[in-house]
């Protein structure tokens, strides 16, 4: 009997191995919210993040000269812009005081290097070398000097994983800077984003700048998301099909800033409270 069992196992060992491994994979898919799984994820991110941190210097080294030149130019531009913004802010404060408007909250920024990109087709994420000990938490937005890049989804003490805008799971409440038309930014694949839920009658033109709106629970308002490249009314639909070119070039994403804004839990709870 044992001999026959042994022969059976030997004969079908490949199928038994693949069967067991597929069963483990399916079980893992079913156990995703388990706290132990989250702990294992954190350990994996820390371990590989340490290695990525070491390897990450290689491409940066070759790019250093070009990067230095670009940064000097950027520094000059930004210094000029800071002066102008300082004046604008003072003016804004005076006007707000006159109108009695509430001051917008100010956020801190944590600089982080992109030490890994996990480009798994529709689930694109980046690993950052800043984590909980730098004040980074899940759901915090990440930006570059050009605009919104994504959102933190997992953290360890030294590293964080962020979904970039090229991720099927991310949604951003946004609006057109010029006409204040609202919509939802989603990625449906390709190199552009889609601004959805925009009625055909609303004023949208190619070249309009898209920014984050006040309706978002996670992203502070006013962050540049991208520029509209085309807007056309889809046949048989009440809504427009709007394509947005992201402000951030994700193929060159090397440094980002995490905006240390904690989503307002009161607001989220209220918005998700079942209607009575």
């Amino acid at each position, binding site marked *: 009997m044992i001999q026959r069992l042994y022969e059976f196992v030997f004969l079908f060992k490949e199928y038994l191995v693949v069967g067991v*491994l*597929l069963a483990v994979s399916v079980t893992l*898919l079913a156990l*995703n919210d388990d706290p132990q799984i989250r702990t294992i994820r954190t350990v994996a991110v820390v371990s590989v993040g340490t290695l990525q941190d070491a390897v990450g210097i290689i491409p940066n080294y070759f790019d250093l000269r070009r990067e230095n030149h670009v940064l000097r130019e950027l520094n000059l531009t930004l210094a000029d812009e800071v002066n102008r913004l300082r004046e604008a802010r003072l003016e804004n404060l005076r006007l707000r005081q006159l109108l009695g408007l509430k001051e917008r909250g100010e956020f801190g920024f944590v600089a982080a290097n992109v030490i*890994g990109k996990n*480009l798994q*087709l529709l689930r694109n994420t980046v690993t950052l070398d800043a984590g909980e000990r730098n004040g980074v938490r899940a759901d915090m937005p990440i930006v570059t000097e050009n605009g919104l890049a994504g959102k933190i989804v997992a953290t360890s003490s030294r590293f964080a994983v962020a979904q970039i805008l090229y991720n099927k799971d991310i949604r951003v409440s946004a609006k057109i800077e010029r006409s204040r038309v609202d919509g939802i930014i989603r990625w449906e694949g390709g*190199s552009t984003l889609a601004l959805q839920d925009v009625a055909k009658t609303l004023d949208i033109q190619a070249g309009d700048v898209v920014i984050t709106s006040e309706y978002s629970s996670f992203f502070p308002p006013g962050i540049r998301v991208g520029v509209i490249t085309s807007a056309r009314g889809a046949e048989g639909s009440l809504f427009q099909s709007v394509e947005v070119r992201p402000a951030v070039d994700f193929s060159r994403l090397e440094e980002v800033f995490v905006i240390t804004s904690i989503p307002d839990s009161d607001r989220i709870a209220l918005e998700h409270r079942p209607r009575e």
Partner: protein
Amino acid sequence: MRQTFIDIALTLMVVLLQTTIAQYLAVAGFSPDIALIWIVYLSIRRGQITGTVAGFLVGLVLDLLSGNDGMLGLAALSKTVGGFTAGYFFNENKTVQTLGSYRFILIILSVSLVHNLIYFIIFLQGSGAHWWQAILLYGIPAALYTAAVGLIPTFVFARRALL
């Protein structure tokens, strides 16, 4: 035994390459699946069981690093099937010939298509999106690019076969 340790070390290196260097090889948003090429290589070189186990482990590590909630096990599952499928092309007496010829590219392409098919069918469950559209728009181009990158090891093995 020594060979096993070397394979494990190289597998870890490939995972590291996939999460660091692969981004620099991206064309039109598609990155090559270096990890899958390595899994196919292991299946052809060491056999179906090794390829299957390597596929599972590599996929699991990539899953753990993805940070996305709700999909742990997806890459493990699709890469396990990838390793298993590639294992059907294992022939102990023709390993170098297979790796150094167009057959290796065709194997990578077919395994990559199977891998992407499984990935998208499961990933898009409940999303309302059509998996066949995802396959057309991403699965096939990504598989073609992965197969194209597979030309590099093929040339290396072709040279080795000639020497």
